């Protein structure tokens, strides 16, 4: 949950706040969950919403946006052949809107399939697949050769 929020907010403090808020909400509203099998997507979607809301409110106060890293600030990297340059990835994420970052995080960190993504966002599975496909094409164009 926290890792998903980190990707959405690009900020660990916001992610921690979002997770804390999400647990608080979950504690109060857990009884509203009709299908316990949906617990995980439900919890993550609550955290996603909190992260988006916190990001939006802090952006309104001009405090923070996902930082764009300049070349030369390279962070630790994995095998260049197996992953994407972390600076390029961070910058590409910064250019996405929070909804798209949430979609990526729920898909590739939380491991949601199209049905779970649809459940978490209230949209159709086909719509989720299409949106994800478009997002991947965009990222592949930006990062594919990185």
């Amino acid at each position, binding site marked *: 949950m926290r*890792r*998903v929020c*980190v*990707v959405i907010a690009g900020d*660990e403090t916001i992610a921690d706040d979002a997770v804390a808020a999400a647990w608080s909400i979950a504690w109060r*509203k*857990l*009884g*509203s*969950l*009709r299908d*316990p*099998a949906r*617990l*995980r997507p*439900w*919890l993550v*979607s*609550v955290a996603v*919403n909190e992260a988006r809301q916190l990001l*939006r409110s802090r952006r309104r106060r001009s405090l923070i946006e996902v930082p764009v890293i300049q070349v030369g600030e390279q962070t630790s*990297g*994995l095998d260049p052949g*197996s*992953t*994407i*340059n*972390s600076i390029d*990835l*961070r910058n590409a994420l910064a250019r996405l*809107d*929070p*909804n798209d970052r949430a979609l*990526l*995080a729920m*898909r*590739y*960190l939380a491991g949601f*399939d*199209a049905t779970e993504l649809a*459940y*978490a*966002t*209230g*949209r*159709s599975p*086909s*719509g989720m*697949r*299409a*949106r994800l*496909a*478009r997002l*991947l*094409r*965009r*990222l592949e*164009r930006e*990062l*594919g050769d990185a």
Partner: protein
Amino acid sequence: MHEQSTFERRLAAGLEEYAGPRRSVDAAAIARTATSRVALRHSIPQRFSALVAPAPRLEWPAVGIMALLVLALAVGAVIVGSQQRRLPAVVEPAGNGLIAYSSGGDIYVGDPVAGTTTAIVTGPATDSWPIFSPDGTHIAFVRGDPWSDDASVVVVSPDGSDEVVAMPAGFSERGIGIAWTPDSASLVANLDTAPLTTPSFDGELALLDASGLVEPRLLTPPLPISPGAPYFNANSGVAPMFRPPNGDLILSGDYDALNVFDADMRSSGQLARQALSGFEPYGVSTPAWSPDGSMISFSLHRVNGNQWVGLIDVFVMNADGSSLRPLKGDISWMLAWSPDGSMIAAQRGRTDREGAVIVVIDVSSGVVRVLEATSVETKVEGDWSLDSGGSSSTGRKWDYEGWSWSPNGRSIVLLERHGTRPLTVDVETGLATQLPWEADSAPSWQRITAR
């Protein structure tokens, strides 16, 4: 989902690194706790919608006051309405009134007969895209950059008074396009999810109360979002998927269906499923009711997986899905029914160079008339690129700023480029007349009682 590509695996690995170390949670224990409570207060979609719509929740005393205000307004409307000569409903032609437009960030109304203009909304804010309500009594416009999350939607009377915010800034995360519902009570905002596409909006739909008393709410969901399949284009002053005159049935295109929803947003089924089966796989966009609600037009696209790969044709059929037929006008999906429902105007690509011309198609006979005076070249601003699945540009490519039918159905009014003078083109004679003012946005013509 499908097996991950090499790029997806690299992306997943990159995200894993970016997100930091994993921490464990005993989800199973929480799941056991979940079964011990009962109340269902919010579904996930509702909750998501509420967060997308950040307008403040009304407290109960405020709700009571608002309810009294609404009641008083309703009583007042009945009294006033009974004393006025009423406009014909959207289902028939009306008379031509004033024309609303924006210029230099202010809103104007112009009299095309007298040639005079009046600034009705001025000030430091950037206001644009005014559209008259179908009953001609209000003008809605966008305040702020329409392509940003700072855009709000404002409604005023035709003289610029009684300003009401129908959608606060921040509701949309990127851009918006607006259109009125046929009953003039609400607006539909298409919240763009892709920046700076051609004049279309393929994102979330929101319903706005034109009086500003009720906070906006999302229609998607339950209406589906199909990226690449816009609900309406920028030429639509009235949201064409709402059945006139009351908006009691709503059309919704999707990847493999033309759906119908009732006013409570419950699905009422699919139209022409059998007739369209021969085109599979297909996608449906820009569904539109004819002005009298007896017919439906829509665009059918070829799809490859989740990509829209081209227009098959624009189709019309009866409202029950019968008598499906293609328009065969070699036209784009940018189309508009004439006020009397006998014709459809649409854009056609030029063959000699990149550009467009507006054609008018007789719905009964299929006869196409080309309005040469509307011919324009394609314009590009900024960094424009288009991939096969949609736009990812930071620029803009367009043919017209916008165009629409005149309320009496005898001409097309258009603006080719911002900062130029609008044209009216007579549909019968094809003759063009230049209006005597410069505008930045498409002209919106007021419907008045026919003389």
